[in-house]
């Protein structure tokens, strides 16, 4: 009998990261102590150890950051477009140089596997700064008009699932188009943003152009409500997005929203099955399923259901759950206790509703927040697990018979962020893509990102695009 192979640990060293005990906000080109006089802990979700303490941004802190950004905007406007471009290129370079340090810190603070932070997040972060650097001096040809001007001060609120990448998606286009920035990273993942602030100082970015205030939802609300901010860009839940849209009603401020999703990943019977299995696994288990565009609803054609589910379960069992800093880890820690509770509650509702659950057999570490890769079959479209965003490693399966039915089920949600299509038949792929209400469609692939590729939703998944030529419009307004 062949013994089960065991893996030896291959843990990335934490030596490269050196953290301060306490961090201030980054305002007007330097770190400052919070006027709120309050700090909060940033812990590692995989060990629950304290990593550092960061400042709580109160109203006075946000006020301070916005005044700095107002001055920063004036400075930034006087900088020639080609010089703006050079600053962004420089930032991209500096990120590349310290890429390993950023990747390790991202995995420590957020819980994502090092192979993802190292091979996906960080390369994409610097690529975004490189891409938008090149737009800074070409805005007049981007949309065939020289009437597009920056808003002024952009307030940006980002989530905890891709902390530094979401920063890059927001900050790079905002600065390239000539806006200044007040950024608030997520409460649970502020550390890589603080390291990024060091990079801005190192690059010699003029004071006040980039400002960072750490805090929680309360801090975010101070930003949204601040009178002297000209544009809000938010990535997060649909619930909070709606509140922000309502708050900004009638103010004339710019707004872009990148909200939740419940993407259908449609597998037709003529798909390349093994490829589709890989794609479905990547679609939902990438980044622990903490992905707004995750392929969380598997729509499988009835004729191949049994074969597909069998292969899928076998493949899922190969996923390695554990220490995010281990290079062999596929699935890291759930980002927070709160998120773990939400996932657990929704999975219980799926069981109570009557869904059949499959979870992989694996040992979970004692400390930290973990959830086993989970698959639901026998699910009715009305179940909460088929409708609500779980934001965890939980896949829900629904079957269909015809392409029309697949599209109908896929579109039967208030969300419209992304979708996947698996088929070897070109005409069917194109027909399906045309009929899906989603802003990003991956055919025979999933979860691919690129700075040149616009990302954003239809319907209640938000409005505005990030990335690409279309992403510029999120930070420019037409001069009357």
């Amino acid at each position, binding site marked *: 009998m062949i013994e089960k192979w065991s893996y030896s640990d291959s843990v990335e060293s934490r030596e490269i990261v050196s953290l301060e005990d306490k961090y201030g906000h980054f305002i007007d080109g330097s770190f400052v102590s919070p006027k709120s006089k309050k700090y909060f802990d940033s812990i590692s979700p995989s060990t629950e150890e304290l990593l550092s303490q960061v400042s709580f941004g109160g109203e006075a802190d946000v006020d301070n950051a916005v005044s700095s950004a107002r001055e920063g905007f004036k400075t930034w406007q006087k900088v020639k477009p080609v010089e703006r471009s050079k600053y962004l290129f420089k930032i991209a370079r500096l990120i590349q140089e310290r890429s390993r340090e950023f990747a390790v810190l991202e995995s420590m603070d957020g819980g994502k596997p090092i192979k993802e932070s190292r091979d996906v997040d960080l390369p994409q972060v610097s690529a975004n700064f490189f891409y938008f650097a090149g737009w800074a001096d070409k805005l007049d040809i981007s949309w065939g008009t020289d009437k597009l001007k920056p808003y002024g001060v952009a307030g940006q609120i980002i989530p905890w699932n891709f902390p530094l990448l979401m920063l890059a998606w927001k900050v790079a286009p905002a600065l390239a188009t000539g806006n200044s920035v007040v950024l608030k990273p997520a409460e649970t993942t502020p550390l890589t943003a603080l390291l990024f602030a060091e990079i801005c100082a190192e690059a010699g970015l003029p004071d006040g152009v980039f400002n960072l205030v750490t805090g929680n939802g309360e801090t975010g609300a101070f930003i949204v409500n601040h009178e002297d901010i000209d544009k809000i860009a938010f990535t997060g839940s649909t619930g909070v997005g709606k509140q922000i849209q309502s708050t900004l009603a009638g103010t004339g401020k710019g707004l872009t929203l990148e909200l939740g999703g419940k993407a259908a990943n449609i597998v037709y019977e003529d798909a390349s099955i093994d490829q589709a299995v890989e794609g479905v696994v990547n679609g939902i288990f990438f980044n622990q399923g903490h992905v707004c565009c995750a392929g969380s609803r598997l729509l499988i054609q009835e004729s191949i259901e049994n074969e597909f589910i069998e292969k899928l379960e076998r493949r899922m069992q190969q996923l390695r759950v554990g220490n995010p800093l281990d290079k062999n880890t596929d699935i890291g820690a759930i980002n927070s206790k709160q998120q773990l509770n939400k996932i657990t509650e929704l999975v219980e509702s799926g069981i109570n509703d009557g869904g059949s659950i499959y979870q992989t057999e694996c040992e979970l570490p004692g400390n930290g927040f973990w959830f086993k890769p989970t698959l639901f079959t026998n699910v009715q479209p009305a179940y909460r697990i088929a409708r609500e965003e779980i934001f965890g490693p939980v896949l829900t399966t629904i079957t269909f018979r015809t392409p029309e039915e697949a599209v109908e089920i896929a579109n039967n949600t208030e969300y419209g962020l992304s979708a996947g299509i698996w088929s070897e038949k070109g005409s069917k792929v194109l027909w399906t893509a045309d009929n899906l209400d989603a802003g990003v469609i991956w055919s025979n692939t999933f979860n691919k990102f690129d700075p040149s590729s616009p990302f954003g939703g239809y319907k209640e998944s*938000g409005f505005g695009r990030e990335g690409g030529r279309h992403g510029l419009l999120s930070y420019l307004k037409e001069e009357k």
Partner: protein
Amino acid sequence: MSEVRKTYKMFVGNSFVRSESGRTYSLEQKNEVIELPQASKKDVRDAVSSAKKGYSSWSSLTPYNRAQILYRLSEMVEGRKASYVQILKESGISTSTAKKDIDKAIEVLIWYSGITDKWEQLSGNLNPVAGSYFNISHQEPLGVSFIFPRDNLSLNSLLLSILPPLSVGCSVISLSREAGILAIMLAEDVHNSDMPSGALNILTGDYEVILGDVSKHVEIKGIGVNSVFNNDDYTIIQSNGSESVKRVFKFNESMNLLSLTPYLETKTVWHPKGK
């Protein structure tokens, strides 16, 4: 003997209809007083179900076909130019201003008929991603759009308000008060054109009556308001619209690519390349 009052009707689902509420308002013309329907909540609901069907047929036509229908409409307006000028004169507009307005309106119709099969080449593009993928961003119309045009006596202004969404394949519901007669006259030409039923719906009356219903209606995907719209009411629309993340924006009456983009959703499609 006093003039018999003519009652105009609104244009919904390719039919001319009274308000379900029976309410009307009147517009004083030079020689007569004209009654027009005051749109109600029920009329809005009817217009939306008409516009939903209209969206499905209008957006599934080829862009080439939409171009031909809009161009034909410009010919029809030109054919009735004298009547349009007459209506404007009876509303108190000078002959020269009225003529200029209709001439401009015809030019606008021609511009927008020609853009139907071109905007997608201007607003979409291939994305040069760093990998072996075909990646394209193209646009789709938002869907049912509600338009609050400026309430001035100008066909040009009305067309600059409703043609941006129409030309990209949205179906449109618009509301006019002072320009109600003019809008219904346009509806008569639309009625005689090949535009599918429900693609364009024209309501008349005070907007305050239906503001809440329009802004809360989840089947209305976009609301465009003119640049001089009352800000308190705009606030109400935006606030109500947030309940369904509705696209709500102010538009300029202009002819360029950026006049179309608010009515578009960008869809990005990836596919691997390989052997």
